């Protein structure tokens, strides 16, 4: 899609205008929040890119966003809507934690790989039933995946409150995973770990899969015109099912990486809405894996930046949500003009 479009002066101009629009509305909001916009921007930039620690933190926070966005993108290639990333991510996280606190294979790498595979499998399982219902009964996957999120949230709440509760914590959470399952931090004083490279690796694999693999090509054709795909001998239902399973696995993997690389347990309110943020990122990125990385970076930088803004100014924490929303609104609107509509 993207490759076929050319860069022109008009587009460049529009892009500049877009950035200008976002920045000026942001400035207004920061000013309204009681701070001079220039200082505000300085804190946001310093907070997200200012030093190597902040920068690593920004990168680290991209991991779940990238994978949650990819979990929406892959099914979207075949025309399926996966709004269930949140639930799949939770299940995946639980899967990784379950393996992490109950089993041990002795070798750290084996442990980690097994836990991640289990997390992907759990996520996949949670995507499987909406996909199955869609394919067998044409049940709207928007409803089933959406409801799946709420069901998963309660299911996890039950599991971490009852059978798998950490008896030492007043909080509903699983026991901590064994240290041999932990993906270690790479730098002193930062949570940055190899999970980032796993996420980037997945994105590259997806990119190559879509552009270079026969099956990836079939995904695209199925999404573009399923009737045509069927007449061309593509097995449409299988393709759609597969894409949904891959999506679920990616979301599950996001949960698994969060547990092994960061939280080391699944607690209540484990996800602050990664699934929905992922959906937004995917939409802004045209389902394109590489663009997802770029947009996830923006989202993540904005988040780490606003923590910093809150630290040094009197601007309330809620501002990060407002800034984020403003960015999405403008990007989504300008996208139509800059790149043209998907529909042609």
């Amino acid at each position, binding site marked *: 899609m993207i490759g076929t479009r050319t860069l022109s002066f008009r587009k460049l101009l529009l892009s500049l205008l877009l950035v200008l629009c976002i920045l000026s509305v942001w400035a207004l909001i920061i000013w309204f*929040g009681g701070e001079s916009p220039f200082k505000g921007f300085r804190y946001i930039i310093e907070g997200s890119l200012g030093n190597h620690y902040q920068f690593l933190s920004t990168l680290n926070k991209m991991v779940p966003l990238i994978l949650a966005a990819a979990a929406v993108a892959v099914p979207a290639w075949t025309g399926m809507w996966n709004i269930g990333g949140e639930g799949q991510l939770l299940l995946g996280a639980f899967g990784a934690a379950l393996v992490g606190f109950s089993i041990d294979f002795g070798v750290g790498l084996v442990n980690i790989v097994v836990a991640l595979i289990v997390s992907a499998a759990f996520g996949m399982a949670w995507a499987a039933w909406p996909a199955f*219902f869609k394919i067998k*009964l*044409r*049940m*709207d996957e*928007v*409803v*089933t995946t*959406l*409801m*799946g999120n*709420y*069901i998963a949230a*309660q*299911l996890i*709440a*039950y599991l971490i*409150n*009852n059978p798998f509760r950490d008896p030492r914590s007043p909080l509903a959470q699983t026991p901590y995973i064994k240290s041999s399952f932990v993906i270690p931090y790479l730098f002193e004083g930062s949570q940055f770990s190899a999970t980032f490279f796993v996420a980037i690796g997945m994105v590259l694999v997806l990119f190559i899969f879509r552009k270079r693999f026969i099956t990836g090509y079939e995904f695209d054709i199925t999404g573009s015109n399923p009737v045509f795909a069927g007449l061309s001998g593509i097995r449409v239902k299988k393709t759609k099912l597969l894409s949904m399973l891959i999506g679920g696995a990616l979301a599950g993997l996001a949960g698994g990486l969060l547990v092994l690389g960061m939280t080391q347990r699944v607690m209540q309110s484990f996800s602050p809405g990664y699934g*929905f943020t992922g*959906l*937004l990122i995917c*939409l*802004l990125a045209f389902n394109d894996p590489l663009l997802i990385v770029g947009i996830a970076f923006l989202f993540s930088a904005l988040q780490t930046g606003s923590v910093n803004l809150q630290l040094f100014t009197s601007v*309330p924490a*809620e*501002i*990060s*949500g*407002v800034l*984020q*929303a*403003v960015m*999405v*609104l403008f990007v*989504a*609107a300008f*996208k*139509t003009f800059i790149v043209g*509509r998907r529909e042609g």
Partner: protein
Amino acid sequence: MDIELITTLFRTSIRMATPILLASLGGALTYHAGIINVAMEGLMLISAFFSVVFSYLTGSAFYGIIAGVVASMLISLLYSVFVSFLKANNFAIGFAINILISSLTLFLMRVMFQGKNAFNSPDIASIMELKVKTGNYFLDNYLLNFSILTYLSIAIAFLLAYIIYKTSFGLRLRVCGEMPQALTAAGIKVGVIQLWASILCGGLCGLAGAQLSLYNVRMFSRDMTGGRGFVALAAILISGGKPKRVLFISLLFGLFDALSVKLQNEKIAPQFALMLPYIMSVVVLLLFHLKTRKQYGKA
């Protein structure tokens, strides 16, 4: 079963169903116009907020409702401008609006009510009930003494069924969702129809928010819509946007909500009871699909 228990369940169901019903009727309009509206959560929330603020300031629930409806309509207008005229993706804009309003209401609460996540006050006037005591148990408990918005919402369901299927606006609305090119070719602007649908949806979501914050409870608390906008979306998708079915499904959801409170005991963990409304919505959809499959044979 004991009559008192059924009455309790019934009254809770109706109260829980009303906001969902109002919102999903609104969403049904945009659904027919070809927009799956995920912003309903935010629309309800902004209305819940302004309803409370204005009810508190003016001491009148009526002005509260008006303020909530107006606020929700304005946001709807914004939504529609982005989606119908700037052709932005409706999911992206919808979720962005939800984030915006969730943060904005907190932000405003900090500014207006000194840093509270929740605001309540005896000065908040609540929405009137149709208060008549007839002495007849059935009438008093099953038909009377609900919020006037409950009665209104049921009337609106039938009104919308009429508007969508019988009037000229309804015809254009349906065409707009199914084949917008046909509308353009007939010289009617698609964006304008969608704009109207969105604004009406905003109005109804506004009523839903007001009902939630001025009747169900009389307060505002952060994210108090608690996913009801998405439940409403499910109701719309399950019912195909047909108002009478929306009515039916919303009442069903209200019942499941009531049951989820009631069913908890030593044997049933709260989580499983609380899962019920969501599982049932999938089950209802499933039953409906099995039914149609039987009717039309395998396609």
